[in-house]
């Protein structure tokens, strides 16, 4: 019995589907990661049209004030277990838009990310490496960061 459960846990870690949601420029490199040269499907990643079937939400770059509620709603619509990958400098501290006050500078304080991927925008290789880190995290049984805390729990959206 334990073996079967282990198998399902392993299956969860090896099959990550992304919600189709782009908040910023990094989605361009995400498209490149899907493309022939990098082809993230080799590792089993796949975009899905609706958040209901997704395992991973990618914060692709900047999060403006206006899109934040939509981002949180999308996260809430995903089924458990769900993970968040933050792409690019913007999702860490605003990046090149740090001076711009129309942009949320700390989106990952609101919605904590499991993995940060550096770059502006991160290269496709880096995106795939980041997703592999998510796999590792799932295999080690570490609960997702957003389930542990974050401002989003106190916010209404």
């Amino acid at each position, binding site marked *: 019995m334990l073996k079967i459960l282990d198998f399902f846990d392993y299956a969860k870690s090896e099959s990550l589907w992304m*919600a*189709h*949601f*782009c*908040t*910023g*420029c990094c*989605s*361009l*490199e995400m*498209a*490149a990661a*899907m*493309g*022939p*040269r990098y082809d993230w499907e080799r590792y089993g990643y796949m975009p899905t*049209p609706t*958040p209901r079937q997704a395992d991973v939400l990618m914060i692709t770059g*900047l999060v*403006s*004030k*206006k*899109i*934040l*509620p*939509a981002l949180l*709603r*999308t996260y809430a619509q995903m089924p458990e277990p769900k993970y968040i990958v933050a792409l690019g400098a913007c999702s860490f501290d605003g990046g*090149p*838009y740090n*001076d*711009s*006050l*129309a*942009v*949320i500078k700390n989106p990952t304080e609101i919605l904590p990310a499991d993995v940060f991927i550096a770059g*502006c*925008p991160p*290269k496709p290789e880096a995106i795939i490496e980041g997703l592999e880190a998510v796999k590792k995290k799932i295999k080690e049984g570490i609960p997702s960061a957003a389930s542990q805390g974050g*401002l989003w729990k106190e*916010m*209404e*959206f």
Partner: protein
Amino acid sequence: MEHLKELISRFSCAYVEDYKKIWIKAKLNSKDDLLDVAKALQTEGLRSLSTVSPTDFAEDGIMEINYFFEDLDTKRNLWLKVDLPRDEAVCEIESLTPLFASANWHEREAYSMFGVRFLHHPDLRDIIKSEDFRDKYPFRVDFDWDAHEKETVANVQQIVDAFKKEQSENEVDLESDSSETILNWGPTHPASGPIRLRVHCDGEEIISIDPDIGYVWRALEHLVTKKDFIGAIVAVERLCFMDNINSMVGYAMAVEEIAGVTITPFASWMRVLLGETARISSHFMGMGVFFNNMGLHTLAMWNMDTREFFLDFLESYSGARIATAAIEPGGVRYGLDMRMFDELQKALDKFDANIDEVEAIFVKNPTMRMRAAEVGRLSADEIHMFGLSGIVARASGVKTDIRIDEPYAAYDKLDLEYITQERGSARDRFVMIFEELKSSVAIIKKAKQHIEEAVANGEMNPTKDHMVKVPKKLPKGEAISRVEWARGEVLMHLVTQEKAKSPYRLKMRAPSFNHTMMLDYLLRGQTLSDIPLIFGSLYVCQGDLDR
């Protein structure tokens, strides 16, 4: 040109002068003349209003409004200024929207950002800025951003409340026994990207569309004023990452004009080369998106395959695949190692090997023709009326291409010809992208050959000629520059103050703004299936839509 000048001189003007080759710059003494001037211009043939750009001179108490009128046929353009009092209560002017349909959203933007009220505007609502800025005008010089920023949580709450209020009320007016409904097409939608279309539809049929934009609003035009002239290119290139080089070229040209600097021939040829490379990488995406939106991903994948090779060249030149920051005022940022051309040659070979296949399978695709040949048609008159540019304009047979009309960089040394399509349908726009892709590759080949020959002759030094020094502090001045971007015309209006270290005002007129305005016009009465098709064919990038 002289006729136009004479026409303007009939009104009371502070000055009327020639500016560049195909521009006339004029300033009206009184805002009451505006409507008459606009009417006269329209009969004269200047039927497009490129943009409306207010500049806030707080010290003088003046809000200066710049209108950029264009005639896409005869290439006569007018830069018209008029002063308004800055005080919010009296900061108002007649709207030009009844005369120039293209002014609609541009005036809404000026209203949202600067609080200029346009009288008799049919639909003067906030656009782009989020709900927390309601009744606040963020681009006014005296707006206290930091105070606003302290309230982030409350601001987001305000946005949420407004959205919920809208969702609870938007269907109240609909009849209870009809099948009418309102769909949110985006922002969590596989084909939308960060934009929301409020689609008012009856079953499959669309009644009207109200685009809700601003989901990637970064206030770039305000952001550049916080940076120095070099640092500003970081913001400028993020106008849209798909073709970032050409937007930097536009900005650099404006700065160079104020600084009075001329760049070297090598730098100008490099701008052509890099610009076309970026254009190609953008067009590849555009073609892919068009077919993606009809449910076919193969073309996007094939294009991505070739595109990577062009990005390789950009990477070998600048170190970054996309965020290259390769153009700066005074030339291009880096010297050229001639071995980098090997990368470019690889990309060109790859392109040549694949392009026939793409044409046979996708450009001549019968199902695509069946879908797209009749929908989303725009006539040449509508192009003028709505101020459209780029591939959308040329697909309707309008001969406009800033690379030819007002050559910049080294485009005047290339024999370019207008590439146009006739019918202006969604399919023609797609074919237009494809044709332009081929012509861009031809330009790259010429530019590459020219640089190689000139370097071999010793006319250019690729490691030293790339930059001319531009002073860090610029004099007081004002310049506009236009570039042919992948998606159309980008107009940069740069204003500097005395001994400025950073831009005082930079208006970026981006083509997607006008193209998105067309959605409602084109989609009324069509079916839901046409939304992604026409949206894709208009070649919209949300980055430059919101800025």
